């Protein structure tokens, strides 16, 4: 039993898949071109299948071999294809063009030629041109643009400039024309270069600077044409490079002072310091010889003012005439009157006019007497305190809040008083000093309180403990009496809380609880020594200990439950009692 013959043997078959292909721009119409579905080979073989391989872009793209069709067709196609081959630009190889039918093809080694039964004999390899050959003008354009001439139309990726209102304008570039350019040579005028002997001490840099400082580049007129500059632009550049222009008028020159002082030969002081403003002013005033002298004169006198300028100006003018006595007098007057040393009101001892026949020190008290004299000033300089003290009869003097009328009234009174008394009597006003006056502040006031009466203590939270008291029979009776025989029920469960003990197990009612609680607690208290696990206890001891703990816990649970039950019973009983007692005003929850 062999295998059943298969319908298709994979190794001898070609498989094509139907795929979508986008419509191309090269104008080739596709079959079924509505959506552009074509068959492409997917099994990787290269045998020709009629009807399928023609459409296959794989076969077209790589120019791979295909099997023979017929001799007649071969010959025709061969001629055509050799002319239109995309490898036409390639270098001619001798081996290719010999009439060898199995002529070597550059890609031959890469091609795997399947041994297909029908086409195995006389299969030929042939160059197959890929797609439509580019027309010559297109190829030329591609080469001009710089693209390689490999048969691919790069122009499809190029955009036309200025088309469809893109907004770009085409400006041809100035391509570098190698044949017209000269070597880039700079010409310098070095006629002014001072050639120095090179010392060992001189730096190279300084030498270069020395050479460069006195040289100027020359512009060649041909330079303009080479670089494509406008002649106007070139002229402007040439002008700006000229160094001499820069020195002439644009630069500010601040050395006018130096020029000014250069005229004053032999004048040492003018050259040293920064000249003062007066110099400038003087410089502007006159340029005569007298000006020089005035400068000297000014230097001698230390204090100089604006006024001196005028003075000296006057001097300057008077110099030209012969000096008269009147002039000298005038000058002395001017100096005396406008001398800065003399301040107004400054009474010199040397000044004869200001002197009296008495010594000035005798009159020290004059001012104070003058101010204190009430006849002259009235009440103007008196404080209210003074007025009140001068009239002790009127005790109620105006306080800090002064009323005008009282003031005036008192002033009149004081005047009368003063006029009676001697004028020499001065009203002495004494002020209480701060220390003597009794200043009451908080601390002082507080300190007047005695600690014996107001014993300070800490503020504590009110304790609530004193309400409950020890419950004894006597106490019960006492409370009964105090409440008028009424036992008050308080709390949620309406128990006679007054009669209940604070601690369980200390009073009558508590006995009941006590009994219950005791049993549980008794064990605990007696067995307060809880069984503690010791190191190295035997398993039996461990068991015993655990059992003992269990017992304790069981008892504790029982005691707790008993307590709860008891409490509940009590509250129930209280409720019953309350229900029975009478007025339904007692509301039980």
């Amino acid at each position, binding site marked *: 039993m062999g295998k059943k013959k298969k319908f298709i*043997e994979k190794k001898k*078959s070609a498989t094509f*898949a*139907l795929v979508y292909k986008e419509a191309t721009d090269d104008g080739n119409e596709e079959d079924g071109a509505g959506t552009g579905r074509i*068959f492409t080979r997917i099994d990787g073989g290269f045998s020709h*299948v009629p*009807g399928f391989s023609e459409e296959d872009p794989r076969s077209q793209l790589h120019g791979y071999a295909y099997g023979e*069709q017929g001799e007649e067709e071969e010959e025709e196609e061969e001629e055509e294809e050799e002319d239109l081959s995309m490898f036409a630009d390639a270098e001619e190889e001798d081996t290719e063009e010999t009439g060898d039918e199995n002529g070597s093809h550059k890609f031959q080694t890469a091609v795997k030629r399947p041994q297909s039964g*029908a086409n195995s004999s006389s299969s030929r390899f042939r160059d197959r041109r890929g797609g439509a050959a580019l027309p010559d003008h297109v190829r030329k354009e591609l080469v001009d643009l710089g693209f390689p001439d490999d048969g691919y139309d790069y122009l499809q990726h190029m955009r036309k400039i200025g088309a469809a209102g893109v907004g770009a304008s085409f400006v041809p570039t100035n391509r570098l024309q190698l044949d017209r350019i000269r070597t880039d040579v700079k010409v310098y005028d070095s006629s002014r270069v001072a050639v120095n002997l090179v010392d060992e001490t001189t730096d190279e840099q300084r030498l270069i600077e020395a050479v460069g400082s006195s040289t100027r580049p020359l512009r060649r007129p041909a330079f303009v044409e080479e670089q494509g500059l406008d002649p106007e632009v070139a002229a402007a550049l040439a002008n700006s490079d000229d160094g001499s222009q820069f020195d002439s008028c644009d630069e500010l020159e601040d050395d006018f002072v130096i020029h000014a002082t250069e005229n004053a030969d032999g004048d040492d002081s003018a050259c040293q310091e920064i000249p003062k403003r007066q110099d400038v002013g003087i410089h502007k005033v006159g340029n005569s010889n007298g000006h020089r002298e005035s400068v000297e004169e000014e230097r001698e006198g230390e204090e100089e003012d604006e006024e001196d300028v005028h003075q000296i100006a006057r001097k300057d003018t008077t110099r030209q005439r012969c000096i008269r006595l009147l002039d000298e007098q005038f000058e002395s007057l001017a100096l005396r009157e406008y001398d800065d040393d003399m301040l107004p009101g400054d009474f010199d001892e040397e000044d004869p006019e200001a002197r009296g026949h008495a010594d000035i020190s005798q009159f020290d008290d004059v001012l104070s007497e003058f101010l204190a004299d009430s006849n002259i000033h009235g009440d103007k300089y008196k404080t209210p305190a003074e007025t009140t003290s001068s009239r002790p009869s009127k005790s109620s003097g105006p306080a800090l809040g002064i009323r005008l009328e009282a003031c005036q009234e008192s002033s009149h009174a004081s005047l009368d008083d003063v006029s009676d008394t001697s004028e020499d009597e001065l009203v002495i006003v004494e002020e209480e000093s701060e220390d003597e006056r009794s200043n009451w502040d908080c601390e002082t006031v507080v300190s007047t309180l005695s600690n014996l009466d107001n014993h300070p203590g800490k503020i504590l939270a009110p304790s609530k403990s004193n309400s409950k008291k020890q419950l004894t029979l006597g106490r019960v009776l006492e409370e009964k009496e105090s409440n008028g025989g009424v036992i008050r029920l308080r709390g949620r469960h309406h128990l006679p809380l007054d009669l209940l003990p604070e601690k369980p197990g200390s009073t009558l009612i508590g006995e009941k609880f006590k009994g219950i609680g005791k049993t549980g607690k008794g064990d605990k208290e007696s067995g307060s020594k809880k069984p503690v696990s010791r190191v190295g206890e035997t398993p039996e001891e461990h068991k015993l200990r655990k059992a003992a703990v269990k017992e304790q816990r069981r008892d504790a649970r029982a005691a707790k439950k008993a307590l709860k039950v008891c409490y509940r019973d009590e509250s129930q009983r209280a409720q019953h009692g309350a229900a029975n007692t009478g007025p339904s005003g007692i509301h039980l929850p």
Partner: protein
Amino acid sequence: MKPGKVGVEEAIETVHRIRITLSSKNVKNLEKVCADLIKGAKDKRLKVKGPVRMPTKVLHITTRKSPCGEGTNTWDRFELRVHKRVIDLHSPSEVVKQITSITIEPGVEVEVTIADV
């Protein structure tokens, strides 16, 4: 199989065993394409076998519904079904090309296998 005589006319008309494989996620379109192909082949008086229905391949994807880990663990079960039909013909390849070009349906993948080529 007819032996192919080497001649211009018969070279074109060499009958091959051709297997057309159609696969799709959509059964309806697939059946329609199949029917069209068979109809077209029969119109050209070709020997047709098919359509042979291959078992449907189902791709299961089971994912948690929740984007986080919280909540009840509910799962989504997605599946992708691929249906496959095979049609066998005995015809020259050009004819087959014509036939397959006519029937156009989106989502159907067509593969043509030509034997002895």
